[in-house]
């Protein structure tokens, strides 16, 4: 009996540690990719004022989810209220990724500037009850202008 409990506890602990470490590694790799992409697409400017005249719509989207460790931590923090950095960081990364994809789309089409940038966000529920998790969908879009020569 106790052996079984010990095995279950060990398996659960290993899963927890794997999710935590794997999630942290994934987030680190994602941040690295975003830095590289931002450097590569630095010449495509983004503006949100929308006062300039435009030419073509460009858009990109991404769906992201936190790993179980971060999700558990966010649920724990929620008990006390206040700032939930796990979600804030994930949402910021997702927006940055969507933004970079918009820039890449604009560059592929031969443009050097995106004006009137807008975000459309929503949450998606995956599964039900205890096993449900929430994913965040971010769509960035704007009007590309200033076609490169």
């Amino acid at each position, binding site marked *: 009996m106790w052996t079984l409990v010990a095995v279950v506890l060990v398996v659960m602990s290993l899963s927890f540690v*794997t*999710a935590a470490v*794997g*999630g942290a*590694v*994934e*987030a680190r790799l*994602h941040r690295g990719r975003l830095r590289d992409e931002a450097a590569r697409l630095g010449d495509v400017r983004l503006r949100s004022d*929308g006062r*300039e*005249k*435009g*030419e*073509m*719509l*460009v*858009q990109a*989207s*991404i*769906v*992201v*989810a*936190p*790993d*179980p460790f*971060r*999700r558990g931590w966010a649920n724990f923090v929620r008990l006390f209220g206040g700032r939930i950095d796990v979600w804030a960081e*994930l949402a910021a990364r997702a927006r940055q*990724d969507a933004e970079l994809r918009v820039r890449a*789309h604009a560059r*592929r*089409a031969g443009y050097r500037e995106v*004006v*009137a940038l*807008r975000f*459309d*966000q*929503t*949450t*998606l*529920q*995956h*599964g*039900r009850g205890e096993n*449900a*998790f929430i*994913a965040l*969908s971010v*769509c960035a*879009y*704007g*009007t590309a*202008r200033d076609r490169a020569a």
Partner: protein
Amino acid sequence: MIETYTDNHHNGRVFVIVVNTETVEGMRTVRVLGLVSGSTVRARNVGRDFVAGLRNILGGELPEYTELLQESRNEAVDRMLEHARRLGANAVLGLRFATTSVAAGASEVLVYGTAAVVEPAR
């Protein structure tokens, strides 16, 4: 991707300029035809759910859902463009996207804008 809509010109369909600004560069708005919209509700399938569930162990991007929502947005834009063509528009100005979860596992994508007739500014 929205840029593929430029191909419509070659397929004998009316080319509609789509922007999310109030004007089009180098063009003037001759006539405003009113609001046009397109929407779609899509649900995930079991296969995508399963793969996304596996990916969720480590968190991060879920490309299956990214692709699904991108397809939904393209479909909604297509419907909006059909609406604009029926009105005789050659441009849609001030486009906006709105997305919401209508049920567990299903999302609605709504896209709307102002249909207009534009012509090159002299």
